[in-house]
């Protein structure tokens, strides 16, 4: 084990360092440089002018707002197996299952709601889903509302969300 001991040199004991002032001026030089460069050209600052300027760097793996996917015939893909609700650590997914009578499958959700105030956007629901019925690839990162009910997304809203990156694969 002895050969893994690394001696870290101790700084701050030399006379120049104990004077503090040279180091302070070095630091001032760096901050002043940043200040004057940015004062000279304010638009070189990378800060996004947010509501007017939207982020452009949202990748397909970004976990945005959820959506429920469709089958080829346009009906809901979800089979109300409760896997996502079980996996959810925030317990924000509420499903009421019902029998599916159109012969495509046996079960479907009558109600499917996600409380986005509770949701921690961990993506476990997407991982848990055996049917690829729930995805987080909408690229929506901001949810606004005037009361608490506005933040509980119902099945219809979740179905209406479009993927920002095409329908082909789930990457999240």
């Amino acid at each position, binding site marked *: 084990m002895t050969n893994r001991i690394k001696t870290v040199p101790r700084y701050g004991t030399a006379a120049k360092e104990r004077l503090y*002032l040279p180091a*302070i001026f070095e*630091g*001032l030089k*760096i*901050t*002043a440089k*940043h*200040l004057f460069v*940015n*004062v*000279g*050209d*304010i*638009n070189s*600052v*990378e*800060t996004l*002018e947010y509501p*007017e*300027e939207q982020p452009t760097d949202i990748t397909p793996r970004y976990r945005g707002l959820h959506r429920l996917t469709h089958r080829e015939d346009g009906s809901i893909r979800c089979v109300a197996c409760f896997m996502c609700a079980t996996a959810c650590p925030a317990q924000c997914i509420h499903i009421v299952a019902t029998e599916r009578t159109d012969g495509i499958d046996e079960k479907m959700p009558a109600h499917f709601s996600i409380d986005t105030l509770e949701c921690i956007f961990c993506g476990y629901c997407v991982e848990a889903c055996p049917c690829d019925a729930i995805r987080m690839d909408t690229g929506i990162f901001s949810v606004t509302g005037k009361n608490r009910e506005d933040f509980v997304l119902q099945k219809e809203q979740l179905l209406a969300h479009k993927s920002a990156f095409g329908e082909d694969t789930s990457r999240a």
Partner: protein
Amino acid sequence: MSTLAVVVTLVTIVLAALLALLMIPVLVWLERRVCGLIQDRLGPNRTNVFGFRFGGVVQSFADVIKLVFKEEYYPAHIGKGRWLFMLAPMITFAAALLAFMVIPFADDLVLSGERMKIQALPVEYGILWYLAIGSVGIIGMIFGGWMSHNKYSLLGALRAASQMISYELALGLGIISMILTYGTIDFNAMVQWQSGTVLGFLPAWGVLVQPLAAIITIVALFVETNRAPFSVAEGESEIVAGFFTEFTAMKFAMYFMGEYVAMNTASAVIITMFFGGYQLPWLSTEALTTHFSVVAWAIVVLLPPAVWLFIRWMRKNNTVRPTVSTDWGRHFETKVLTYVLIGMAVIIDLILIYISLLPEGATATTIAVTLLQIAIFVAKLMAFNIFFIIVRWTLPRFRYDQVQWLGWRYLLPLSLLNIFITAIVVVGVAS
């Protein structure tokens, strides 16, 4: 006292109050903008009145309005001490404000044979007043921390007090060596002393005559204002917010504004004692008055390029990136400000040309010299305030024991040594 003296005194008091009070919102805004730009962010830049942002300075006024209308909250456990709890921030604020009142903004104005000090308090013992009143501010901090009945507040107050005691010594001794050098306790006389030259070519500014005393005093004044790197009294990483943890709304704002007034006062004292006060280097007031036409013509020539540069900078920077959909009327603001600036430059140029054509020793020249000195003073004050701000956003906070170590083990012996050397030199020069 003649009517003239009364008018000049009133104007000076208003000027001092404006310089101290109007500087607060500007400094708060500067602090946030400079901090942002240093860290490659933008800082507050959107608040506007009818589209006029002035770089975002309107934000500070909005903040003040918000703080005024905020709920006044008193912790239930302070009991009968409420009046002292309320008084504490006022003491800090008033002390910082009063200490500013002895700073000379210009040399004595001589009008029809009367000598009038351009100083809100026309006293001859300015430095003593500053030392006495400036350290009263700490009493407000101690009261505030003590009355809060809160461990963090008490710790913050104790830290502020102990820090003040340790550095008041170094500050006092540093100032004494300056008093020995200048041979006066009058701020104005100190500035007049600095209008000469040392070694034949350097301006006799305190910082060049007494570099060690300058460093000691500037460091001690940083501590006095409770600002980074010596802001242990409000060390939010350890003691929540220090002595103003329990303070809300306008009471908090009083402490907050008191800090900025104290910083402004410290800047004023530093430039008055070490950076030539209202003087231009190499130009004493007599030289300025006798050769005012030369100075006036220099300003007349230099003002248009300066304004042109500023307008060019504004047209480049008062914009948004092309990717932003709206510019919040910045284009209109730039246009209006361009016309205002050009108009002001033309008016100032015309006035200066008129004055430069007057015979020597005219009243207008005297007043113009005073106004010029006030402008120089304000420019230097702003520069030093920005230095304060840059230092705050450059250095991390000292640990509490390091603060005491620096004060007692380094600054105190150094300032004593400096006094001995100064005394020997002063006696040697005199004999």
